C-alpha cells in the first residue's frame, strides 16, 4: 500500500510561503499515491525555475535538467522504459519561452507523459521579469513601462499542436487540481495541465484574490468536441474556466513505433551485429 508519506522528500521546499507550487507538489504526490504508483516507478523531470526545483522535494526519481528542456528528457525516459510514470514539470518561462518547440512537438507526438506547468505569469527565480504569459501592461523589472507583448495562451497552443488532454487548474483549488493531475496521469497520451499559480513575491497583479474572483470550475459537456474546447480555452478575463477542457484518445507514439512490438526497449537484450548483417556490405 502506497501512502503520501512514501513520496515525502528529505529536502524541504525552498519556495516562498504560500507559493502556488506547494499545491502542485501536493497534487502530484497525492495523485501518484491514489493511483498506487510506487515511488520507484515515478520520474519527475524539470527544467530551470522556482517550480523546476520540485524534483528535489519529492521522494521519486528526479531529473532537474536545464532550462526549457524537460520534455525531450521526459519523452525519452518514457520511450526507454514505458513502465515508468513520467511527469514533466516546470514554469511558464521554462515551458513557453525556451521550451516552446519541445512543447509543440511533444504534444504533436502524443508521448504518454504528463506535463504540468506552474503558470505564474512571471519569472520568479530570476527575480521578476515578464514571462510569456504576462498580461498586457504588466509592470516588471524587464517591462518598467508595462508589457507591450500579448500573452500566449498555452491551452489553445496545446490544442493547435494536437495535445490529446488539455486542462487548467488553480493552485487555490487544490482538491480540484489533484483530481486533474490524477486524470492527466491516467490519460493514455500526452496530457497537459496549465496551473494558475500565484507568485506571491513578484506578481502583485495575478494574486490568489485576482484568480479567486474570476476562476470557476467548468465541466465540459463533451470533452471530445475540439472546436468547443478551443472556444472555451479562449475564455479569459472576468471569468476563467478551470477543469478538463479537452480529451481525446489516440494512439500514442510508443504504440505506433514498431520497435515496441518486441516489448519495452529497456528489456530488449543486447543484439549486436551478426555476420549475416555484414552480407550487404560484401
Amino acid at each position, binding site marked *: 500500500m502506497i501512502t503520501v508519506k512514501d513520496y515525502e522528500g528529505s529536502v524541504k521546499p525552498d519556495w516562498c510561503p504560500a507559493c502556488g507550487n506547494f499545491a502542485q507538489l501536493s497534487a502530484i504526490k497525492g495523485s501518484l499515491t491514489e493511483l498506487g504508483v510506487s515511488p520507484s516507478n515515478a520520474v519527475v523531470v524539470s527544467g530551470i525555475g522556482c517550480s523546476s526545483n520540485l524534483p528535489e522535494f519529492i521522494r521519486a526519481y528526479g531529473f532537474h535538467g536545464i532550462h526549457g528542456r524537460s520534455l525531450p528528457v521526459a*519523452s525519452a525516459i518514457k520511450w526507454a522504459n514505458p513502465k515508468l510514470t513520467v511527469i514533466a514539470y516546470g514554469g511558464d518561462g521554462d515551458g513557453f519561452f525556451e521550451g516552446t518547440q519541445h512543447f509543440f512537438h511533444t504534444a504533436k507526438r502524443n508521448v504518454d507523459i504528463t506535463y504540468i506547468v506552474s503558470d505564474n505569469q512571471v519569472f520568479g527565480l530570476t527575480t521578476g521579469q515578464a514571462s510569456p504569459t504576462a498580461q498586457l501592461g504588466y509592470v516588471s523589472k524587464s517591462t518598467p513601462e508595462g508589457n507591450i507583448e500579448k500573452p500566449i495562451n498555452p491551452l489553445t497552443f496545446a490544442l493547435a499542436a494536437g495535445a490529446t488532454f488539455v486542462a487548467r487548474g488553480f493552485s487555490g483549488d487544490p482538491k480540484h487540481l489533484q483530481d486533474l493531475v490524477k486524470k492527466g496521469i491516467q490519460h493514455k497520451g500526452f496530457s497537459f495541465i496549465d496551473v494558475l499559480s500565484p507568485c506571491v513575491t513578484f506578481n502583485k497583479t495575478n494574486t490568489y484574490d485576482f484568480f479567486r474572483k474570476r476562476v470557476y470550475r467548468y465541466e465540459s459537456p463533451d470533452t471530445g468536441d475540439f472546436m468547443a474546447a478551443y472556444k472555451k480555452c479562449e475564455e479569459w478575463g472576468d471569468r476563467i474556466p478551470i477543469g478538463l477542457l479537452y480529451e481525446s484518445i489516440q494512439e500514442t507514439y510508443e504504440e505506433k513505433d514498431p520497435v515496441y512490438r518486441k516489448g519495452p526497449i529497456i528489456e530488449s537484450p543486447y543484439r549486436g551485429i551478426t555476420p549475416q548483417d555484414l552480407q550487404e556490405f560484401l
Partner: protein
Amino acid sequence: MYVKNIDYREIHIISSHNLAVREEETIVRVAGAAGDGVQSAGMIISKVFVRNGLNVMTYNYYQDVIRGGQSWYQIRGSHNPVRSQGDGLDILIALNRDGLERHTNPEINEGGASPLEGIAIFDQGITDYSPRSARYCPMPLAEIAAKHSKVALVKNTVAIGAAMASLGIDFSIVADVIRDTFGTKGNVAEQNVSAAKEGYETYKAKYPPLNKRLKTGGKGKLLLSGGEAVGLGAVSGGLKMYIAYPMTPASSCLHFLAAHAKQYDLFVKIPEDEISAINMAIGANYAGVRAMTGSSGGGFSLMVEALGMAGMLEIPIVVYESQRPGPSTGIPTKTEQGDLNLVLGASQGDFPRIILAPGDAAQSFYLTREALNIADTYQAPVIVMSDLYLSEHEESVDGLDLSFTPDYGKRPGDGEANYRRYLITDDGISPRAVPGQEGLMHNEDSDEHDEYGNVVSDAETDPRKRVAIMEKRMRKLEAYRSTIPATDTYRFDDADVAVVQWGSTRGVVEEAIDLLRERGIRAGAVEVTHVFPLNSDIEKLLKGKKVIVVEGNYTGQFNRLLKSEFPVDTVLVNKFNGEAFYPGELAGMIQGAIRN
C-alpha cells in the same frame, strides 16, 4: 602566435619513383552532373573491386545541390594497401561534356586531383571537346543502352562494362554486382547486365587494355563508409536508440541506422532540433538504455549546454560529431577538422569529457562501440569526431571482429540501504541507479549537489561539499587516462621526423611518409585516435624528433592542444580548402616543413 600557414597552392607534389606501384593500382573516376547517376555508377565499380579482393578507397566530390553542378566519384583499387584517394587518374568515365573537359584539363585541377593520365570513356555523341594528352575512347554508350532498356541512365552501366574490360576484370563479378544493385524487380537487372556486357565486349573489340597489373580474385572484402561504420559500431556496442537531427555529413549514419532500424531492433528518431536530440539521448541513458546522438558542428553547437548537463548529472552520452568546414554554414559538402576547439571547450565549467577520433572506417566501428563502454563506465560525455572525408567515402575493410561485451558500468543492487547516487570514491565513479530500480529514488541535479544529489548551490551553499564533489567528478578523467591504449605509430622506429596526425588524415599521412622514405627522409607517424585526454606516451615518442603536425584546419587546433599538453616545438602543416590531403601534395608540404 599561430604557426605560419603553408600555401598549399605552391606545393611541390611528390610522386613515387616506384612505377610498379602505380601499375599495381588503378584510379577510376566517374564524372557528371548531380542527378546523372555518378554515385550509383561509382558504387558498382567499388563493389566489383572489393569482390575481386582489391583494397578500395573512394572519394566523393560533390556540391551542395540536388541536381546539376559538377560532381565526381573516384575509386582507387589495388591488391596493395590503399589508404587515401591517391594521386593520378587512369580511367575517366565522363557522363557529360563538362566532365570530359574538366578531368582531362591540367589547368582545372579540381580539388587538387590529378588530370587524366590514362583513358577517357564517354559517349561518342560528345565530339566538341578540346583534345588533350589522354587516350580518348568514344563509345556508342547511348546507342547500346537503347538496345537493352528504355532508361537513358543505362548508358552508365554500358560505360562501367567498358571500364571493367579495360582492366581485364572478369565479367561475371560485374554481372553479380549489377544484379545485386538492381534487385529482382522486373527485368531491370538483366537489362543492365546485358547492356554492361555489350559495353564490355565493344571496348575489348575496339581498344587495347590499360597497362595495369591488378591481382584480382582474392577474398572479398567489406565496403563501408565511415558513417555506416559508426552506425554498425554503435549497434555492435549495444546501441538501442539513435536520436539525431539531419546535418551533412553526420546524416549518413542517421540514414543508415534509420534504414536498418527494423533489422537491428533500434529506435531511431528525428526530433524538432539538436537540443531536443541530445536531451532525449541523455534522458534515455538516464533511464538505462544506450542512446546516442550525432551531428556536424552547427548542430553540435546547439547541444553544448546539454553536454555540460550530462557532465554534471554524470549521465553517459556518446555524441558522433562529423566535421565540415566552418564557420557557420561553411561548406556543407566539403571536409575539415575545424571543430576540435568547439568540442574541447563545449559547455561552461570543468567536467570530464573524452574525445575519440577514428582514422578509418574500421576504427570508426571499433571506437564508436568503445565510446559506448567508456561513457557508461565513466558516466561522462564521449565525443566521436569524424569529418566529411571519413564519414562519406567508402573504403574496403578486411573484416570486423563482431564479438563485444557491453560494460554498463557500476550499478547498485535494488533496495541498497543509504544509497548515494554520487558516492565519493577513489576513482570518482559512483554506482548509478536507474528509474524503476526498487528503493533507489534520488534526484539528479544540474545544480551543484552533494553525494545524495541534494542541491548545495542555493540556500545551503557549502564550499567543502562543492570541492569534494568537483574533485570526485574530475577524478574520473584520471581513472580513464590510465586506460588509454598505447599511441599508434607508423614506420617510427628509426624516424628523425615525427609527423603527428589525428583522425581522418591517418591513411594519407602514412602514404606521404612512404613517399618521403623513398627520398631518404626518415619520417614516421604518430597516429592519435584518443584525442582528449592525450596519452602521456606521446611526449616520449616526440622527444628529440623534428615534430610536424598535420591537420585540416586554419589555426592548428590539435597542434595547440598538443603543445599545451607537452613541451614540444612543432611545425604545422595544414589545409583548409575543403578537400582532403592528397598523398603527393602532403609529402611535398611535409618536405617543405622539414626544410623550414
